[in-house]
């Protein structure tokens, strides 16, 4: 089994929002970034993967198993970190371990206490007394303590300071080092992905925009910059998204159209540029 996560034609309709035919796969040993602006369907996709929402159609396989018919086996090998704490706030770290560990056959107490020490989490403190960064690390420690094969993180870095974000990315890099684990990492802080992700899945307004390697994704686009009047009107249609100023403009184009813009300044696009400009739809 090469893919730890396979999502095929996943769809879900809510009043006012539709997630349509999302398909992507994550090979084991890699980190995939799930990106898109707020409300694009990232969390819906994750909840459908976790069977917390009922899908309208499509299929989800985790480690080769169906996420609904083999739910228990799948979830025994799955670690999840949400954007905020999901453990009882009144528990101490030790009480949280006692409550959660019974659900996992291969929970390793030594590993958990080692991780708690490594992450500098005060085990006597109540969870509500821990900082957001510490709460996030506690959820990571839980997932690592039963050797979850696949880690799913839903906007984990949202409220973290740069030091905590950096630490998390280091932890994830270590986690996939042995080639036997995988990470699906939803975020809108794309700088994290520039550093950590191998693959990108980009969802925009409920539709799949791209899924593939990060390098391929970044190489697909370029940023062009020019002064006022430097952009011929016939090229306007080739701009995926543009930002116009009184002195000039900058825009995102497809790399395949690059020769049409040879007279302008061209720069490589960042993931952030791609997400921002593809959602501007030309000004």
């Amino acid at each position, binding site marked *: 089994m090469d893919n730890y996560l396979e999502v095929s034609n996943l769809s879900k309709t809510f009043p006012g929002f539709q997630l349509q035919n999302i398909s992507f796969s994550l090979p084991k040993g890699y980190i995939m970034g799930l990106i898109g602006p707020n409300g694009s369907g990232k969390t819906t996709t994750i*909840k459908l993967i976790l069977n*917390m*929402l009922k899908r309208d159609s499509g299929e989800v396989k985790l480690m080769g198993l169906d996420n609904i018919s083999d*739910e228990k086996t799948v*979830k025994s090998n799955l670690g999840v970190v949400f954007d905020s*704490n999901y453990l*009882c706030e009144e528990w101490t770290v030790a009480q949280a371990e*006692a*409550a959660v560990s019974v*659900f996992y056959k291969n929970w390793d107490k030594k590993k958990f206490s080692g991780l708690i020490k490594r992450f500098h989490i005060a085990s006597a403190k109540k969870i509500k007394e821990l900082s957001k960064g510490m709460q996030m690390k506690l959820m990571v420690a839980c997932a690592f303590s039963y050797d979850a094969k696949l880690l799913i993180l839903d906007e984990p870095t949202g409220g973290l300071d740069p030091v905590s974000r950096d630490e998390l990315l280091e932890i994830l890099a270590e986690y996939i080092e042995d080639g036997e684990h995988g990470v699906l990492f939803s975020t809108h802080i794309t700088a994290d992905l520039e550093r950590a992700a191998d693959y990108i899945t980009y969802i925009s307004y409920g539709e799949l925009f791209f899924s593939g390697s990060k390098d391929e994704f970044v190489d697909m686009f370029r940023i062009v910059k020019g002064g006022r009047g430097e952009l011929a009107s016939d090229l306007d249609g080739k701009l995926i998204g543009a930002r116009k100023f009184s002195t000039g403009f900058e825009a995102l184009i497809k790399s395949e159209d690059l020769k049409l813009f040879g007279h302008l300044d061209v720069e490589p696009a960042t993931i952030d540029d791609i997400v921002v400009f593809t959602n501007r739809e030309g000004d």
Partner: protein
Amino acid sequence: MNDTLKAARLDLALIRPYMRNICFTMAIPVAFAAINRSLVTGVSFAMCFIAMTAGYTFSVSEKSSMDRLYGILPISKKNLVLGRYLYTCSMGLLAFMFSIIVHPIVLRALGTIVQPADICLAAILGILMFTLYTVFQLPGYYKFGSINGRIFMYIPIVGFLAILLFVSELNITNNPVIAALAGNPIAAIIATMLVCVIAYLLSITVSVKIIRSKEV
């Protein structure tokens, strides 16, 4: 460990910080029994009070957004529900054991002699009342949550008053079925057990259906 037991243990862990309050709640019915010099009153109040704490697990889990934890644990929704019923019934059983042992001792110390028939009647009424309250409360909490469904916390009080009214207004002791059961304690105990099992089976079925249709 069985999945239902694991879920019940998780619920117990949720209310651990509130255990002192619950224990204090159990002390109040002792006073009721002493003031009224009645074991039936004391046990009925104890079961009414403990049923009122049935929503604690829902409140605590709602406060900490624990639906997401339940969504990622390797356990079926049915077992989560069964675990909550097991926890609730265990709390009811503990309250029942406490009141059925402590109240007669207190009454005896105050000079009121408690007959075995009183104990039998108090036990049957207490268990029936607790069942009646919780079989409606738990599906209500599952459906509406602890905040929107806070009205379900008052079911035991309303139920207790309704039962008092029912007994006094309808002169229930003259009912032939009740009279027959009163004359045959074993039949009364079996009938109580049967009613409780059927009521819980129906209640669990409804709760499982609610939780399966819910999206987190």
